[in-house]
């Protein structure tokens, strides 16, 4: 990966393999899982899986770093740690799925049940809410990073999940992904990825069996820095916002709006931060940024950089490859852009930030919302009144005030507009993985 070489080969699943997985999942739902497995059992298994992940934390982080390119430190301290926190959080929900009893008429009993959906398809996301609520999963991992999911599958087996509850298929989007999205016996699909592919998933879902769809898609999240921000902090958070994980984050604060009064000083310090990022081997201690995840991604990012240059934007920093081996791209800052440029409108998914000067609140809110995306937004200001007013006006599913890219297992996350449908994390996520059934029991109403 670091040098572009092959780690190993995995099988490529086909539509027929998806059929097998769905059949296995359905069998589990009908016999050992679904309504046959009480919440306490689901809680126990998820807790066991979490404990196994803790035991194998180093190993999982190494596989992630190897396969994905992110630094081992980040994989270990952030990604895998967070995944463990999320499993434990949902393990706690598993035996707390409550419906309601509703007052209608003294001669009746009326109540709701929140039942598992059944077989759900997960294209990419590692989602624990479906397991917590009793669903069986057919999961397709990323074709760029298939290894962690396979290791997780083995751990899930060891934790004691019955056969068919979790099925993991490695494969490509246009075969396995498409088969899942269009499958007549999958009742819900969750997809994490680009808006382009998300649209295809939703179309396939509609055309097949109208399966429910949740989508976590792209973003071009605005990061708004006002004159009265704590400058040093705003600079640090902004660097984190775009350069974390080599810019490969759907929430990347990739459009950085800086108010005129502090623009020059901000740009100066922000550039210093970007320059200080150390690129190198993800396993080496001290490396801040590893390679991009694949050749395809590398090419796309470089293409965006070229388009920015061609359109007349200024390359304030970077804009080129790092070294001669591996998919490394130097932290890049563009200035002097116009709103219609591709680097301003489209999701780059790399360490490329655009810094834009603005005059006042009205101006920046308009510019910030001028996007088809709506995943996240950040606002920096020491005047909390101003920060909150702005945050409330930004059309995004998450608004960060004086911070950026902070996720918690118990706080919902998801997009407005073409950034997605539905919410992950928190209690809200459970709603996407249960069906509500209302039961009316008559005992004394004579007809």
């Amino acid at each position, binding site marked *: 990966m670091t040098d572009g070489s092959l780690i190993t080969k995995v099988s490529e699943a086909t539509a027929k393999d998806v059929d097998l997985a769905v059949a296995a999942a359905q069998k589990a739902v009908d016999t050992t899982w679904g309504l046959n497995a009480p*919440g*306490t059992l689901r*809680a126990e298994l998820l*807790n066991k899986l979490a404990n196994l992940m803790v035991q194998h934390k180093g190993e999982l982080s190494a596989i992630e770093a190897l396969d994905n390119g992110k630094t081992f430190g980040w994989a270990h301290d952030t990604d895998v740690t967070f995944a463990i*926190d999320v499993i*434990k*959080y949902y*393990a*706690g*929900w*598993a*035996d*707390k799925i*409550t419906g309601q009893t509703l007052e209608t008429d*003294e001669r009746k*009993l009326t109540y709701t049940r929140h039942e598992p959906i059944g077989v759900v398809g997960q294209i990419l996301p590692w989602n624990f809410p479906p397991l917590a609520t009793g669903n069986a999963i057919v999961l397709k991992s990323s074709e760029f990073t298939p290894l962690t999911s396979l290791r997780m599958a083995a751990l899930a087996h060891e934790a004691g999940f019955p056969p068919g509850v979790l099925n993991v298929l490695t494969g490509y989007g246009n075969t396995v992904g498409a088969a899942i999205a269009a499958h007549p016996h999958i009742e819900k699909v969750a997809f994490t990825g680009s808006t382009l592919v998300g649209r295809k998933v939703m179309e396939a879902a509609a055309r097949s069996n109208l399966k429910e769809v949740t989508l976590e898609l792209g973003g071009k999240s605005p990061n708004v820095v006002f004159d009265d921000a704590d400058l040093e902090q705003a600079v640090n958070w902004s660097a984190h916002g775009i350069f974390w994980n080599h810019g490969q984050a759907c929430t990347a604060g990739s459009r950085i709006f800086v108010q005129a009064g502090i623009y020059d000083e901000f740009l100066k310090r922000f550039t210093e931060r970007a320059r200080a990022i150390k690129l190198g081997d993800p396993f080496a201690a001290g490396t801040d940024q590893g390679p991009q995840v694949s050749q395809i991604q590398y090419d796309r990012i470089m293409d965006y950089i070229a388009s920015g240059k061609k359109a007349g934007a200024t390359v304030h920093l970077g804009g080129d490859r790092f070294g001669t081996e591996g998919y490394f791209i130097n932290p890049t800052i563009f200035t002097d852009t116009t709103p219609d440029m591709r680097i301003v409108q489209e999701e780059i998914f790399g360490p490329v930030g655009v810094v834009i000067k603005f005059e006042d609140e009205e101006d920046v809110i308009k510019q910030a919302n001028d996007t088809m995306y709506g995943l996240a937004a950040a606002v920096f200001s020491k005047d*909390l*009144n101003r920060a*909150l*007013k702005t945050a*409330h006006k930004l059309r995004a599913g998450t608004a960060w005030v004086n911070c950026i890219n902070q996720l918690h*297992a*118990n706080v919902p996350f998801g997009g407005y507009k073409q950034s997605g449908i539905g919410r992950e994390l928190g*209690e809200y996520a459970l709603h996407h993985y249960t069906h509500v059934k209302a039961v009316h*029991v008559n*005992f*004394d109403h004579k007809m």
Partner: protein
Amino acid sequence: MLRSVLPIFKSVRNYTMAQPVIVNIPAINKQITVPTGLFINNEFVASVDSKDLIHAVNPATEDVICSVVAASPKDIDLAVAAARNAFRTTWGKNVTGFERSKLIHKLADLIERDAQELSELEALNNGKPSRIARDFDIGDSVQCLRYYAGWADKIIGQTLEVDNKTKLAFTRHDPIGVCVYRGTIPSTCGSRVYVQDTVYDKFIILLVSKVKAQVIGDGLDEKSGGGPVVSKGQYDKVWGYIEAGKQEGAKAILGGAKRSGKGFFVEPTIFTEIRPEMKIVKEEIFGPVLSVGRFSTEDEAIALANDTSYGLGAGLHSNDANQCMRVSSALEAGTIWVNQYNILNNNVPFGGKKQSGIGRELGSYALDEYTSIKAVHWNFGEKLDWPL
């Protein structure tokens, strides 16, 4: 006067740690080391000023196992001060729900690890069969801890719309502070059974044969299905009720005679021909004494059942679903069991109506008893002119 006493603690008292005790259990050829003392600030300490002792007695043999100190009001003050100090510094809002969750899980794991030993101590001191202590009392406690560990990071307040342009209002569900918990055993005993006259005779025959089949003996004996009552005080109280039952004219069709030999054993006792005003029908006995009455109509059964100042649990058995719904609706108790009895689940609230209690344990409802709601009204946009 509640203030942080820790710096003062060590200098004004003769501070001696209370010593652990080695408890011998010959029945299973085992020795268990048990700490003694008052557990304050993660230490087992001697009482400030109390010389009174509580003797832990084995109700199967009437022997004293060991003695522990009976705390005094001054000890309570110390404990409360320690709790308040912790709440202000290392607990309360200083700790996240995630951290609380981890700790509670850890505690559950440790209790599970030591379940066998804990159940043997329970059997020794309480009388109940050790396997019941292990699989039910301790087993259920472990599950309950894990259930609430799962809630610790899910204490959710609300955001409330007041004026979208200028205001933010929300609630926080804050911890209360120091709570005093006096642990006793709640009683849901189905101590009154009312049987419809059409099945009365058959029911009595079956009931007597089932109850006779249970072996009452030493809790550490694998064969025992039940043990002695917990103490001499209880033993005397229960026999008092049995004598009262006989004197007031109820008929003991099972039990009613004392066992010879050591141990606070009470044979399961069944009274019939009861009347509502009898002591055994009105008062909580807290022993293996059942009063069986009869009724003809549903309304009569409901009236008999509700004729009490208590209201903790109630049960009904019927194959008629409509009847189940009507009767469960009419019974005045915090928990109604339909076609079962005495089953508790961690996620289902439990508590009494009428004089059986206030508040609910278990389930999400229990959280309401331990949080205090604070509403925050935050103005970020309204400018106020004065005078209005």
